[in-house]
């Protein structure tokens, strides 16, 4: 089985979010970049298929040279090959078109991409690459098994979960649940050394339109101080929620 894990290069969760150039660009100054958490769950699940079922695992990213350390980290965790499509990831549709090309060229059986990135939260890429390649698709995936050319997939639905079967090739929008947080791997020294020698192929982008454009960023208006209510006077909270906040 040939697996591709799509890796988004995103600011670490704890990063301060600031903008520059008149609030038109994300300010990367002092920001630590990581593998998108939703992709990391998929990458770890892919390692399981590699170890237990002999799958090969490639990782791909759409981005400039500055995203390579993130791909190297994925290689250090255990991926075999990395592919970087050398262009700025401007819009989900554009990124999906680039990745669809990588998938068609590579002939992958299973593609795992996070259900959304934690920077733009578009939630577009996994579904779009399925529509572009014609492969089956399951989103918000929290369980994945493969036997031969059939996958059994569990997805999170509102208020529960749903299990389906689908033939490969399959695209999965992954998230926590594919593996547990405690199963996530930190690259060890041997992995890091090996990752330096693993192939990282840079491919040029295909011609594609940018269908949406983030033109301006805004930060939420700062919130006022919390109103503290005395635990001996809980009536006051009920009154505030009713009269002031008008939510009950």
């Amino acid at each position, binding site marked *: 089985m040939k697996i591709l894990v799509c890796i988004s290069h995103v600011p670490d*969760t704890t990063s301060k979010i600031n903008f520059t150039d008149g609030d038109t660009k994300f300010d990367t100054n002092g920001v630590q970049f990581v593998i998108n958490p939703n992709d990391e769950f998929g990458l770890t699940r892919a390692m399981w298929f590699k170890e237990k079922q002999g799958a090969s695992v490639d990782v791909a990213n759409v981005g400039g040279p500055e995203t390579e350390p993130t791909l190297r980290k994925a290689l250090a965790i255990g991926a075999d090959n990395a592919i970087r499509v050398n262009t700025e990831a401007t819009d989900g549709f554009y990124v999906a078109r680039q990745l669809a090309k990588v998938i068609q060229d590579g002939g992958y059986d299973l593609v795992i991409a996070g259900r959304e990135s934690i920077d733009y939260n*578009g*939630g577009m890429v996994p579904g779009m690459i399925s529509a572009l390649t014609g492969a089956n698709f399951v989103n918000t995936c929290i369980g994945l098994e493969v036997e031969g050319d059939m996958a059994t997939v569990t997805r999170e*639905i509102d208020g529960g979960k*749903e299990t389906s079967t689908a033939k490969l090739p399959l695209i999965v929008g992954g998230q926590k649940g594919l593996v547990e947080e405690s199963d996530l791997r930190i690259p060890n020294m041997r992995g890091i050394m090996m990752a330096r020698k693993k192939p990282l192929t840079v491919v040029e982008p295909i011609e594609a339109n940018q269908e949406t454009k983030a033109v301006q960023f805004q930060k939420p208006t700062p919130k006022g101080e919390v109103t503290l209510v005395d635990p001996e006077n809980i009536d006051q909270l009920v009154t505030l*929620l009713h009269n002031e906040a008008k939510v009950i």
Partner: protein
Amino acid sequence: MSVLVYTESEGQKFKKAAFEVASYAKGVATMLGTTVTAVSINGGDSSELGTYGVDKVLEIKNDKLSTFNAKAYADAIKQAAVQEGAKVVVVSSTADSKFLAPLLAVHLNAGYASNVVELPESVSPFKVKRTAFTNKAFNVTEMPTDVKVIGLSNNAFGLKENEGAAASDAFDPSLSDGDFGVQVTAVDKATDKVSIADAEIVVSGGRGLKGPENWGMIEELADVLGAATACSKPVSDMGWRPHSEHVGQTGKPVASNLYIAVGVSGAIQHLAGINASKVKVVINNDPEAPFFKAADYGIVGDAFEVVPKLIEKLKEFKSNNA
């Protein structure tokens, strides 16, 4: 060239999210000077949609679509959009709508903006405001494509009543076998509970509750408020509560009108996932818990004392305001 809206239903009843996206679609249609057409798949009483400004309902009745199938649903909605010559298609942020929207966008060669929180800032050029950086910022997105797909964030717009005729038209999309490559074999869903996506109020418990055996009071509090229950990441990691209740950056996003956090410290990942909620209340015995900085109302106190009292007071309030 009406605005098309996918009004989702469950058990032949429209979801609340359906009325919200219908209200929003009416707002967009007014800006564009056009009408609203809804697509309903094995849905409820179409006339209900008229209340929220829908002029026409394309009703699909098809047994093959009795369980949700993203590809087939996207295909059906696409055909409706083409028939109507729709330039804007609006969907909600339920798990199912987020599943089908990117497929729909590709089929329509449309730009897609998810997590949209307001009516378009302008329609020429077409610009919408959406959340980004997991609720730590907004971004204004320009959509130059001929057709646009908009995913509206839950509870961002609310229900707005508007007169619409909601004339019903049968619609029979042609579906191919390729639409049914994913076959649902089992659904495990609590039908007696409010889901986080639908809820106007969410009550959430954290590690401060000490163990799964103490969740009775969280459920009771949720019950009194007609709320959904949720939990923090450590709680779902330890298996105290199911994954489906985990809210936060890697869990479910919450955009409720009221969010009550009990014994949740307020890690940055948790806050990122719930920040879109309008009013936040925290109950925690640690006055230094970061949640107090994010909350609108707070009680510093022992959850095991505060929550039962709060339940009592809310019951009194409900009976006085019934």
